[in-house]
């Protein structure tokens, strides 16, 4: 073995964690800046010349935000809309993905093609149409409109991921379950779903994050301040009239936490799920 290879072997145990720290910081630094900004009075955030550390430390920001009724209302909307639209996506995508993976029927390819095309439609390009539809249905400013929109525009990705998973599970497994006396739905629930768990987790995480961070449709549809989700609501901490940068950033940090926890808990499943449908 060559000399560099040996010295690499020796330095590896400490070199990799050091690089790891650098990589971690490369992704975290803007949010560390944000955290520091949450711990200083708003005037200090926008002062020339800038200082990296707060000139004055302010510890009450998170208490203020969590005690703000508007913030709690936005948080409630975000949680309600994200959880509901994720639940709808999973419940609707599973049968569609299962049927297209397992059965052959006229219109199957057409359906999959339509799903692929809707993946390319973004709520942003369609926002005028979305507004007009819900206006004519008298659903502007309702949670239902936001939930349905988030569910519909994330459905395509979920169907494709799950379709890949269902396709990759051998039919024989299902046959065995059926021979053992499982009905079709029992087979789906007891045999197929556990095996597609990584795909389900992936679809869940993607839909949840997309719904949690959706902006343009919520901005257009939700007129009541109390019905806005976090992404739209917290912007009113910094407007032309009042500037509470500390509260904006404190609220933003709180908004990141649920998603990162969700990630930390299911990261292992997620990595299995991202390309299992397409990488064979």
């Amino acid at each position, binding site marked *: 073995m060559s000399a560099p290879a040996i010295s690499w072997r020796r330095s590896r145990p400490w070199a990799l964690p050091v*690089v790891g720290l650098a990589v971690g910081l490369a992704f975290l630094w803007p949010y560390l800046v944000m955290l520091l900004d949450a711990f200083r009075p708003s005037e200090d955030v926008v002062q020339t010349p800038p200082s990296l550390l707060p000139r004055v430390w302010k510890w009450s920001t998170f208490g203020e935000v969590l005690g703000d009724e508007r913030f709690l209302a936005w948080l409630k909307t975000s949680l309600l809309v994200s959880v509901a639209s994720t639940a709808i996506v999973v419940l609707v995508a599973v049968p569609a993905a299962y049927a297209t993976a397992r*059965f052959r029927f006229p219109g199957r390819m057409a359906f999959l093609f339509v799903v692929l095309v809707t993946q390319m439609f973004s709520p942003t390009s369609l926002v005028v149409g979305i507004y007009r539809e819900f206006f004519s249905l008298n659903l502007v400013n309702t949670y239902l409109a936001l939930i349905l929109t988030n569910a519909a525009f994330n459905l395509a990705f979920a169907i494709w991921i799950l379709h890949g998973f269902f396709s990759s599970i051998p039919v024989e497994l299902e046959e065995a379950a059926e021979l053992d006396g499982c009905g079709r739905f029992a087979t789906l629930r007891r045999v197929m779903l556990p095996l597609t768990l990584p795909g389900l987790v992936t679809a869940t995480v993607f839909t949840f994050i997309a719904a949690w961070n959706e902006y343009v449709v919520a901005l257009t549809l939700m007129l009541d301040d109390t019905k806005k989700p976090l992404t739209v609501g917290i912007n009113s901490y910094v407007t032309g009239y009042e500037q509470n940068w500390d509260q904006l950033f404190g609220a933003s940090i709180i908004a990141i936490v649920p998603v990162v926890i969700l990630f930390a808990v299911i990261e292992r499943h997620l990595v299995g799920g991202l390309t299992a449908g397409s*990488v064979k």
Partner: protein
Amino acid sequence: MSQPSTTMTGATGKPAAPVGARPRGRRRATVRGRGAISPLAALVWLAPALLLIVGVVLWPAVELVRASRSRYSITGLRKGPAGWDNFRNVLANDSLGTVLTNTVIWVIAVVALTIAISLGVAQFLTKDFWGRRFVRWAVIVPWAASLVITARLFTLIYSYYYGSINAVLLDLHLITTPIDFLGSDKLIMPSMIAVGVFVSIPFTAYVFVAGLGAIPTEVHEAARIDGGSPWQIWRHITLPLLRPAILVASVMNMIYVFNSFPIVYTLNESNPGFSHDTTITFMYKLAFKSAEKDVGQSAAAGLFNVVIILVAVLVYLRVTRWRDQEEQ
């Protein structure tokens, strides 16, 4: 779309799979498990999905088409049919050429840089080292954070007066006067691209981590025994095997980056006109921010957007022979 290559049904409508060798009882199960069913039976499984797609994706699309053929008052009231006027007006907009050029630069630069950097990040994240879990969580954060907030955060970080980038560069005496990242015509696009890449890496890196995980370790061992250098192994073994993941990541990123609204909209907010807009923010400004507040024109621009990304992705899939890859 090419022909439905995955269809297993023979000419008689029975499965073409080799069922002959199996016992009779299992053959029925095969028909059930992988069989042909009537469109009506299929509808039972697909109905909820079709309802959502038709009700909340296609209906707005139809509304968008109708809006694009209508004339609106500045307050958004429909005044009557407009024929093709809205489309003509969009095409005649002086800024259209600039906006299209911006969009092409924005999408290609962000997607290409994202893919290249994510390959390295993913390679690193699959190595085994102390603290890897924490690094993986850290990489997730830009994805978990709302794009609007990340964009607002970067308007501060980039700021001429109180931005931390300028603060650090000034402290290190690398520059003597602050850099106007968002106000300079030369710097704003690279500044926006940097943020675009930053927020796109987490998703992309995770697609690659999954792709790397799918490559059997034996392949790399064999190549090493054959005396391949690390670079040769990566270039000739890893990269080709990662192709499906790269395809998935680039298509998804193309769609996301093209449709990305908050970064360009927020970082570019202080600049007047359309000189640094992409087609998505251009469309939004036509409806809600321009002097005319023209819903009809905005709808027409929205339709152009849908068509542009549709054609771009289909061409990309064609060029990269996506289907061939799927069939292997």
